[in-house]
Structure formats: C-alpha cells, structure tokens
C-alpha cells in the first residue's frame, strides 16, 4: 500500500522534472544566434520560403505560445521535422534508439555483474592483493575516457589479437530476424536464430566493455566501501558467532544493506553511459543515435537537437525512477519515511 503511494509521489516528481527539462531544452534551443528558419533553409532560399519556414517553426509567435505548441506536439509524439534528414525527428530517433539501448543495456549488465562481485571480493578480503588489484582496476576504469577505452580495446582485441570484429552491430552476411523488440540479440534469440545471436554478441563485446569500464570501476569501489562499513557492524560479528558461513554472511547480511546506496549511484552511471554511448558508437561505427546526434548538432538542426536531448533525458528519468523504487523496496525506512 505504502509502496504505491511512494511510487505515485516519485512519478509525479519525475514528471515535474521532465517539464523542467523540456523548458530548459526549449530555452537552450532558442539561444541559437541568427534566424533558425534561415539556417534551416540554407543561404539559397528565397525570402518567401524562409517566411514559410518561420510560420512552420512558429517563430513569429510569442515564446510562451511557441512553448505551448511544442508541448502539444510533444504529447502527440511529434518532435517536428528534422531539418537535416527532412524526416520526422520521432521516426529518425526511433530507428536508431534500439541499437543504442542494446549497447547501454549490455554495458549496464557488464558493469553490475562484474563490478559488484569485484567489490564484494575486495571488501571480503580487505587490504589483500585482490583488494589492491581491484582498486587499481577500478581507478583505471574511472579515469580513462570511454573513447580512449574504445580505441585501446579495438587496437588490442580486434586488430592485434583478432578475437572480435572491428566495427558494426552484426556481420553483413548474417541473417536478420523479424523485428519484435528491435533489440537485435533478443529478436534473434526469440526467432531461434542462434548463429545471428552469436555473431551479434561477438560484435557487442568490445563496445559494451568500452562503455562499461567507467561505471564498472565506480560500482566496484562503491560496493567495496559500503560493504566494508557493514562488515564493521556488530550484527556481522553476531552472525559469525552463530557460525554462519562467510558466504552466507556476505550475501545475506552484508551485501543487501550495502547495495542500497550503491544502486542509486549505478542509476547515475546509467545516465553517464547514455551520454558516453555517443563516443563509443563513433569509434565502433555502431548504428545507434550517436551519428544522428552529432550530425544534427553540427548542422544546427534545432528539432533534431531538442528531440535527441529530450529522449535521452526521459530515459534517464525513467531509469532513475525504477532504481528509486527498487531501493525503496529494499529499504523499508525509505518506504515509510513519509508517514
């Protein structure tokens, strides 16, 4: 019951932030120097054509009316026409978003499934060689930009050792599955096309690791720090006195409270990965949102820029909300704090 109230409150809070984000992005887009319609139509367009474009972009109306129209269109899923591809921004984004999501999800899995256990082991064997090695690995993960990781991984594992493919999402010769979720690996698995699944997995390994390295380091360091703190608590000593095995203590008593603060930061890392995906996709020629995003920015395509930033922010908010709810589920103190 209370979890529902918490959920609704959180949903409302996220919506308010999303409205703020839309105002901010709308405002940023209006910072553009010069006449957006003229930029859109190019220097060869006639004055009438530019005037027509001004009408279409609602540039002749007051800013508040412009924003109102922008929100009305947005609610219908209409982000306007991309001035660069001349197609609706919504369809442009929808056609490239799944590849980016697939990459980010793979990276998030790597970050969690390797980073958290690494932190657990480091906390369990504090100040041992394992701990120091994990710490160093975590540090290198954090301080190296993801595009540098991408280039290093590519040089070593694709060019020198030739274990993984150099670029792309899937081999040109691979059979493509019917589109269901738009996530290539998942779709191929549903269709039972295992050679394609394997091929796509081989393609995603390097970009996903390049993207995950930063978050992986943070995850390991945080888990280690939070778990060390829990290990110093008396109830852990009590559990030891009752002769619970170290594995039981680690999994049942130490990890769960340590995960609560860790999860929140992992949500933030997810946001950082959505941004960094741009960098990694450029290196590995991954067919995601990056090329489109960079292209619209360089061409000053107003609708394209607004759409791209808005979609990424919406995803970020959704992920954070999910994380908050999971945290609330794990930690009763948050669930009941409003009573």
């Amino acid at each position, binding site marked *: 019951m209370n979890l529902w109230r918490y959920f609704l409150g959180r949903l409302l809070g996220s919506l308010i932030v999303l409205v*703020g984000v839309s105002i*901010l992005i709308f405002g940023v887009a209006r910072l553009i120097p010069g006449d957006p319609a003229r930029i859109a139509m190019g220097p060869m367009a006639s004055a009438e054509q530019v005037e027509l474009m001004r009408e279409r972009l609602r540039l002749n109306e007051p800013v508040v009316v412009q924003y109102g129209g922008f929100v009305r269109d947005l609610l219908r899923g209409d982000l306007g026409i991309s001035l660069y591809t001349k197609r609706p921004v919504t369809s442009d984004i929808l056609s490239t978003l799944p590849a980016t999501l697939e990459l980010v999800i793979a990276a998030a899995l790597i970050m969690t499934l390797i980073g958290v256990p690494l932190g657990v082991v480091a906390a369990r064997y504090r100040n041992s060689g394992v701990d120091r090695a994990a710490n160093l690995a975590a540090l290198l993960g954090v301080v190296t930009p993801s595009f540098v990781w991408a280039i290093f991984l590519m040089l070593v594992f694709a060019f020198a050792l030739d274990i993984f493919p150099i670029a792309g999402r899937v081999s040109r010769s691979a059979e493509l599955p019917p589109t269901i979720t738009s996530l290539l690996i998942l779709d191929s698995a549903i269709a039972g096309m295992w050679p394609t699944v394997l091929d796509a997995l081989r393609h995603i390994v390097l970009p996903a690791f390049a993207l995950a390295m930063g978050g992986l380091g943070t995850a390991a360091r945080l888990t280690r720090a939070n778990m060390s703190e829990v290990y110093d608590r008396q109830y852990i000593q009590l559990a030891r006195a009752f002769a619970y095995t170290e594995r039981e203590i680690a999994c049942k008593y130490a990890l769960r409270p340590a995960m609560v603060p860790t999860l929140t930061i992992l949500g933030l890392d997810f946001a950082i990965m959505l941004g960094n995906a741009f*960098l990694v996709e450029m290196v590995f020629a991954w067919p995601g949102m990056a090329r489109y995003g960079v292209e619209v920015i360089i061409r000053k395509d107003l609708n394209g820029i607004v759409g791209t930033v808005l979609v990424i922010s919406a995803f970020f908010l959704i992920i954070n909300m999910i994380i908050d709810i999971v945290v609330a589920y794990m930690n009763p103190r948050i669930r009941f704090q409003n009573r």
Partner: protein
Amino acid sequence: MTPAIFNSRAWYRYRSEPLAVFGLGLLTVIVLLAVLAPVLTPYPDHAGRFVDFGNTSQPPSSRHWFGTDLVGRDVLTRVVYGYRISLMIGFVVLGLAAPLGVTLGLVAGYMGGRIEMIIMRVTDVFLAIPALVLAMAVLGVLERTLINGLLALAVLWWPWYTRMVYNQTRALRHEEFVVAAQVVGASHLHILFREILPNLLPSVLTKFTLDLGFVILVASALSFLGLGVEPPTPDLGSMVAEGASYQPDMWWLPVFPGLAILLVVLAFNLVGDGLRSMFGEGR
C-alpha cells in the same frame, strides 16, 4: 628551511598514502611540462601551423618519441601543448562553476522555504540531463568558440556543487554555532560565508580537485566529437579523434594523446583521494 606545510599534521596524513604521493608527483610533472612547454618540448613550433611533408606519419623513434602526425608534426610536442589547454579549461570551468554552485547550495540549505524549493528543483532539472549531452546541445546551438565551450561546461557543472553544499548546509543550519551567531544578530551573509562555509571547505576542495580531472575528461570527449578547440591548437581529444581513423597502422596517433588524458585525470583523482583522507573523510 622546509616550508611549514611539510611539518604539519595534514601533510603527515597525506604522506601516509603512497598513491596520493604518487599522484602529487605525477601532477607536478604534468603542470611543469605544461607551464614550461616552450622550453622543454623538442619542437615548440610544431604546436601551431607547421607542416613538414618530408617527415609525415613517422613511427616513434629517438628523434620523435611519440612519432609524427599526418603533416609531419612531433606528437610529443603537441601532447605537451595539449596539456596547457586541458589544464586551462579545467581551472576556468570550475573557477566559474564551483563558486556559483556553492553559493546557491548555501543559500538553499540555509534559507529553506520557497527559495530552497526553486533552487533545488532547478538543480534537479540540470542533473536530469547527462552532462555530455547537455554540453553538446549548448555547443550545438552556440558558435563553437573556446569561450562558449567553457561556458557550456560551467553551466552543466554547478549543480553538483549546489547539491553537495545544500545537503551539508542543511545538516549544519541548526548547529549551536549557527544559532549563536543568529542570536548576536549576525547578518545572513556573515553566517553563510563566515560561519557555515569554512566547515564545508574541505569537502569542496576535495571535490574541486577530483573534478578538475573530470572536467578535462568531458572536455576531451567534446573535442573528440569535433565540438572542441579549433585547429591548429593542439588538443588531446581532437588528436585522439584524428588518429582513430588511421589505426592500427598509425597507432601512435590516438594512443599517446589517449594515455596523456588518462594520466592527467588519474593524477587529479589520486590527489583528490589523498585530500579526502587527509581531511579525515576516508574510510
């Protein structure tokens, strides 16, 4: 005569962390290299508009430790000059963002009420957009000049300081020393900057140091995407981007600038961690 700082308790605590000492050494080397670049680099004129088509794309050798680029410029020289611009970006961006963020956080945490609500909601909005994407958007609509790049980064960095200072100020605002100052009639300004702020300086300074590295990292990402400093100014991120298209044959083009970014961020990180344990916040 050793300066007083080296005899202090703080220095003793800092010194006990080997990694922090290593970081400080690394940072000193990087800063010295950057400051003394015209004297130390082998080919200072390669930092600008220079071409030597008889000497292009040479692999690392004793004459060019990091090799030469596509127009025959010494990569080592350009990496060292790249540090100059990186460090400048770090200090200018945080020099703008940190004071703004700290002030807003102090005001929101101390005043409470409607002011608190407005400041913190705006902060939430800024924090809801991935930093890199927001900077890209701002640079997308503005002219791509160095000043605008610095402003874009500052615009996305202040909310982190606001949130941190806000949380700490809220914890302090009912402490006795604050109440005491209120009772004797101290002004808000005095309480904020003379009573509360000094307590927060250790964590602000720690974050500032760590962030210097991360600002450099994000700035290099922006220039990697082609939104950075205009050529021919040497910039580490754009050097990696340029070189990326010529790997694996000319691996030295992206690898050395990439390592250079890694090292400067690492140095600031280690020093930041050292400061944190020096101020006794470490675990």
